[in-house]
C-alpha cells in the first residue's frame, strides 16, 4: 500500500492481461482485407455493367455503407467487430457504423436532439478533422501552384 501512484501504475501495467496482439492483428488483417477485396470485386462488377470508372469506387463505398448500416441495425455489426477489431473499424463500413449506432441508440431522445445530434458523435470529429486537413492541404497546393512548382 506504500506504493506511489507512479509505482502502482507500473505495477498495474505489468500485471494486466496483455491484449493478444498477434491474434487480434491476424483477425483484423483477414477481415479488413476481405472487406476491401469484396469492395474490389464489386468495383470490377460495376465497371463491367458499364459504370463510369471514376464513379465506380464511390459507388462501392456507398454500397459498403449500406451493408454496414443494415448490419448495425440488425445488431450484427458489433458481434463481428468484437472479433475483427480494426478490421471492421478502418474500412468505410466502420465510419458508417459510427454514424448509425449512436443514432439508433438515441432515438428515444427525439428526432432533432436525439438522432440529429448523436448521429455525428463519432462521425463529427472525422468530418471535422478531415475537412480541416483538406483545407490545409488546399492552401499548400494553391501556394505551390502559384509558385509554379
Amino acid at each position, binding site marked *: *500500500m506504500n506504493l506511489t501512484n507512479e509505482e*502502482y501504475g507500473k505495477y*498495474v501495467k505489468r*500485471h494486466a492481461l496483455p491484449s493478444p496482439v498477434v491474434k487480434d492483428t491476424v483477425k483484423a488483417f483477414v477481415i479488413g482485407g476481405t472487406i476491401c477485396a469484396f469492395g474490389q470485386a464489386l468495383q470490377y462488377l460495376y465497371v463491367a455493367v458499364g459504370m463510369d470508372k471514376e464513379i465506380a469506387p464511390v459507388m462501392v463505398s456507398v454500397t459498403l455503407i449500406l451493408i454496414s448500416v443494415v448490419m448495425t441495425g440488425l445488431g450484427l455489426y458489433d458481434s463481428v*467487430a468484437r472479433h475483427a477489431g480494426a478490421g471492421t473499424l478502418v474500412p468505410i463500413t466502420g465510419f458508417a457504423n459510427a454514424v448509425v*449506432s449512436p443514432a*439508433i441508440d438515441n432515438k*428515444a431522445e427525439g428526432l432533432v436532439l436525439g438522432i440529429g445530434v448523436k448521429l455525428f458523435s463519432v462521425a463529427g470529429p472525422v468530418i471535422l478533422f478531415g475537412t480541416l486537413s483538406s483545407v490545409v492541404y488546399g492552401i499548400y497546393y494553391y501556394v505551390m501552384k502559384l509558385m509554379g512548382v
Partner: protein
Amino acid sequence: MAGVIKFGNKPEILASSAVGGDTEAKGNLGKYFDMTDPTDRFGKKTFEQAESEMQRLALNFALKKSGLTPDDLDAVFAGDLMNQCTGSSYGLAEFGVPFFGLYGACSTAAEGLMLAAMTVNCGYFERAASVSSSHNSAAERQFRFPLGYGCQRPPTSQWTATASGAFILGLCSGETGVVLSEALPGKIVDKGITDQSNMGAAMAPAAASTIHRYFSESGMHPDDFDLILTGDLGQEGHSICRELLLSQGLRMGENFSDCGILLYDSEVQDLHCGGSGCGCSASVTAGYVMKKFAEGKIKNILLIGTGALMSPSSVLQGLAVSGIAHLVRFSKI
C-alpha cells in the same frame, strides 16, 4: 476516526430479492434470481426505464417475501449508475416511501446497506430498505460507446451487470436470522489510474485499504469468515487486491472471492474480467449469498462493495479514476 462500527441492536435483513437480465440468467448464479428477463427490457421502451423497472420489481419482491407493504417502510436508500440517480428515483417513486438517493458507483449496495443498518440500529427507523441497480445497456450508452458500435473490449474490461438487488432491514425478529453486525465505511483512494477499461485496478487499492483497516482494527482473521466477497473487482482487480494485501502481511485464503467473478460463467460467456456495476454486488448478495445463509451453508461473511468514482467528463479531462470500498459484515444469529 470512528473505525469499525458495531451494530449492537442487530439490524436484521428481513427479506431480499434479486432481479436480472439475460446475461445474468445465463451466468453461474442464474437460478438465484427472483426474476430475469431475456430481453433486458422488462417491458419498457428504453433501457433507462428498464433499469428503474428492475428496482421497482426488486423492492416489490422483497416486500412480498417479508409480508410487508410500502407503508411499513420508513425509508429507502437507493442508488444506481445513471446520471443524477434517475434509475432509483423513477423506479421507487410510486412506493411513496421517504427516499435517499445515493451515489457510490458500484459500491452503492454496501453503502445503502450500511446506512439502512445505522438508522435502524439507532432506532430512527423501524424498517428501512436498500435498493441498487445497474443496466448494461444504459451504462454502456452513458460511459462507453453506443450499443451497436463495433469496438473491441480489452482483456481487462468488465461487463456492467443488468441487475438489481433489494434488501429490507428491520430490528431483529428472527425472520431470516441474518443480521448486519459490523460495518466500515471506506475512504476515497486515488492511485492515479486513468485507464477506463481497467476499473479493477482503479478499485483494488481502495478494497485493500478497507480490508486491511478492518482486520487490523477488529482483531478478526480472514479465516474466521466463510466468505469474503469484494464487490466487482473482477479477475484483474481481485488478483491485484490479493497481492496488495499479501504485501501488507495479510494472506487471504480460498474464501476470498468477488461478486463480479461469481456472477458470470467466464469460460462460456467471454465477458473478460467479470461483472461490475451497482447491480452486480447487490444481486449476488441479495440472491446467492442470502440463499446460502438460508441453507445454513454460511454463517459469517464480509462484503466489500467496491466503486470506481468517475464520470464521462472526468475521464475525457484526463482525471484519474479513484476507488472506494465500503465493508459490511453479515452474521447468522
